[in-house]
């Protein structure tokens, strides 16, 4: 859907999306990254388990919710990538116990 314009000043930041090492760009938000990683979604909803992608990117739609470093339902459009960050795209309702 989206492609980054060439920008030599941006370093690659390695993160993990559902356990798979993925190169992100320094300074971008997690939501921006998820829009480049197939299947280009953030989650399946806890209501009817329909797939959703980031929609507004300005913190008001809550469709970019994902789990970041163990914290659930993070608005990924408000969080920048950090090296080693672990991002999980939830499917349905959260499980709080192992």
């Amino acid at each position, binding site marked *: 859907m989206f492609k980054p314009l060439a920008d030599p000043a941006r370093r690659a930041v390695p993160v993990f999306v559902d356990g798979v090492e993925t190169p992100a760009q320094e300074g971008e938000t997690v939501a921006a990254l998820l829009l480049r990683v197939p299947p280009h979604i953030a989650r399946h909803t806890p*209501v009817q388990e329909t797939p959703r992608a980031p929609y507004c990117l300005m913190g008001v739609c809550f469709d970019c919710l994902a789990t970041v470093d163990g914290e659930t339902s993070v608005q990924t459009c408000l969080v920048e990538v950090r090296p080693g960050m672990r991002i999980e795209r939830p499917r349905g309702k959260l499980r*709080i116990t192992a």
Partner: protein
Amino acid sequence: MREPDTIVIGAGTVGAAIAWGLARGGQQVLVLDGGDTDFRAARANFGLVWVQGKGPGMPAYQRLTRQSADLWPAFLRDLAEVSGGVQVDYERRGGIALTFGDTGHDQRRALIARLEAERLADDPASGATDIEMIDRRALQGLLPDLPLGATVSGASFCWRDGHVNPLHLLASLHAGFQRLGGDLRGNTRVSAIRPEAGGFAVTSDRGTWRAARVVIAAGIASPALARQLGLEVPIRAERGQVLVTQRIAPVLPYPCSGLRQTADGTIMIGATKENVGEDVSTSVRASGWLARKTVDISPDFARLQLVRHWSGLRSLSPDGCPVYVQSADHPGAFVAGCHSGVTLAAVHAARLAPAIASGTLSPAFDPFHNRRFHVQAAS
């Protein structure tokens, strides 16, 4: 529409259950509901269909509560039959009242023993006990997916308890009595009830209606309306604040006092009891305190996100028990008020509504007459 037999003032859980019961009995019912931002206990309800712990010093209330809990399955079947099915997420697998520390466990045991003694004194034929004290290990066995916090000492478990989605219940009652020909007028604020020959004239900002009978079920707005008919009904507001979390996979197989998991997966946490008058603002003192209580029950809850926090006003009588009364000066005018509108919905529909329709509240409702407060006030 033909002239109504009965006008019910208030479309909350109490008014709607009575209206449903009246319509089921063949009456033509008109229900008048207030504005969108009126105080509405029904909209803030926790959703327990709850028996245990209720009615110390008032065995009639214990009896009424037990009776209603037992009427619930038939009440729902009836509602479903008329409406072509209802989806209210009703479950009755028993309920848990958690205890904290040895003292908490002993206090709970003492309360349960008192209630049992009062129950048997009131009605020796009221059957075997429905409640037992369980220790921490037994409790953990009932809640295997939820590591208990260090201070949890056990619980009382009552098989009669259950829970329901109170908003869906209200929606089903509204749909049900309209399906039977009843009429619901929203955004209609009643200002005056005037006795006339053969009945009452009920005046609102949207017009005046007449009927032979009128039922005041307007929660904390009831006292002012009842006073117009010479009835003193001392119902006051008590604020309760409730928290709701994000949806999670099932962890709580039983409703607990102050904590239940809904069919949608959210965890409801409640509730404060605050004597602050007609004020529905919310406070972090309340959300902080409720969060602490919840994390004390299980540290696993700490990572849950609070999604909603609201407050509502309970309508409470001085002894916390319901008020059912017919005006002596103006027969045909009734007041029904209580704070357990969900638990008592079945008995309101199946027992109270037919009594109202017959024009006489049966002796079973005598203990709930408002004269009990006047006696206390005089002594």
